[in-house]
């Protein structure tokens, strides 16, 4: 999850470039952590993430983009709890996981 005070942004995996750091852990559909916060992303991660079916992820940013958001771990967990009331199914593939991440992003923006 995001450390308090750290800015983050949602990107597609094709946008990964060397030096980016993960702001939110990447989990599989069972909730197991595949990549933890602060992981320094490299090109090899693109292949790995594709293999796992992940299509988007939150990376840390410098806060210069208007799309950037700032959420701490507690807030993200609260957003996930809120989202579970509307999102009653489990993503079964990468594209559905992308829909879930999109819904989580909107929930964070609209409610926190």
């Amino acid at each position, binding site marked *: 999850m995001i450390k308090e005070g750290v800015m983050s942004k*949602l*990107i*597609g*995996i*094709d*946008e990964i470039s060397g030096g980016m750091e993960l702001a939110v852990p990447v989990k599989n559909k069972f909730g197991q952590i595949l990549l933890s916060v602060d992981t320094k992303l490299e090109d090899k991660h693109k292949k790995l993430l*594709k293999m796992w079916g992940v*299509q*988007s992820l939150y990376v840390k940013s410098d806060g210069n983009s208007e*799309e950037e958001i700032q959420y701490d771990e507690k807030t993200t967990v609260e957003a996930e709890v809120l989202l579970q009331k*509307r*999102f*009653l*199914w489990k993503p*079964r*593939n*990468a*594209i*559905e996981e*992308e*829909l879930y*991440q*999109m*819904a989580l*992003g*909107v929930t964070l923006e*609209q409610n926190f």
Partner: protein
Amino acid sequence: MDLIDKIFNTVNNLPTLPTVYSTLSEAIEDPNTNTERLAQIISSDQVSSFKILRVANSPFYGFHGRIDTISQAILYLGFNEVRNIVFALSVINFFSKDKLLLHFRPVDFWAHSIGVGIATRMIGSAAGEKKLENYFLAGIFHDIGKLLFFEYAHKEYASVLELLESKQLRIKDAEVEIFGVDHARVGQMLAEKWKLPESIQDAIFYHHTGVVRNQSNNLVASVHLGNIVARIMELGYAGDNLIPEPNYKIWETIKIPNGAFTNMRKSLKEDFELTVRLMLVE
């Protein structure tokens, strides 16, 4: 007469569509019609033609303010897509927007429908579909049956809205409990009566399943996903706030590239806000 018959009778007795649309449809069917004749018919209603031009210049059509005349709109978007815009604007005006039923407001309903229209077109484009004609209209009309219930079975629809809140149902399931049919069926009846293309009738009837008689169909799959995306993005309000699960079968045919949903998020929101203002407010 039971409730289902009442609804079916109501649909059968609804008036035909506004004159400009009917005249336009007849003219399009006429082999001797040319662009000027069609432009003349549309331009006969100055308010409509102004709105049509503004919608034709919406970012999601990709012409960004370069369409200045109805003739150009026909040239760039094609006869049918211009007729679709005329039709969408006519139907939005056809139904009252002022009534309120519990937390259901027609304005929010139309905003959701416009959101689905734009998302449907973006999804079709992301999936590599070249013929995007009808995508916007199919999205706008996918839920039209809800408005029929709302307008012509107001009291019973209040029961639907109460039921879905108390049981956390999807609105379509609450409709089936109260009316015996859902808005997809009633909407398809109306589309048939108004002689909309079969592809749009299918999109209305099958938007919950995303497939037509177990056959893949890009337009229907795009409306199915457009509805999910519009609900995720909270564009307007569809009567309940649940985010439906996609039918897994659609992934066998519709191919959405990695990151497409993430990438469309910003432009979808911007296009939605602009188009809602154009079609519902100004």
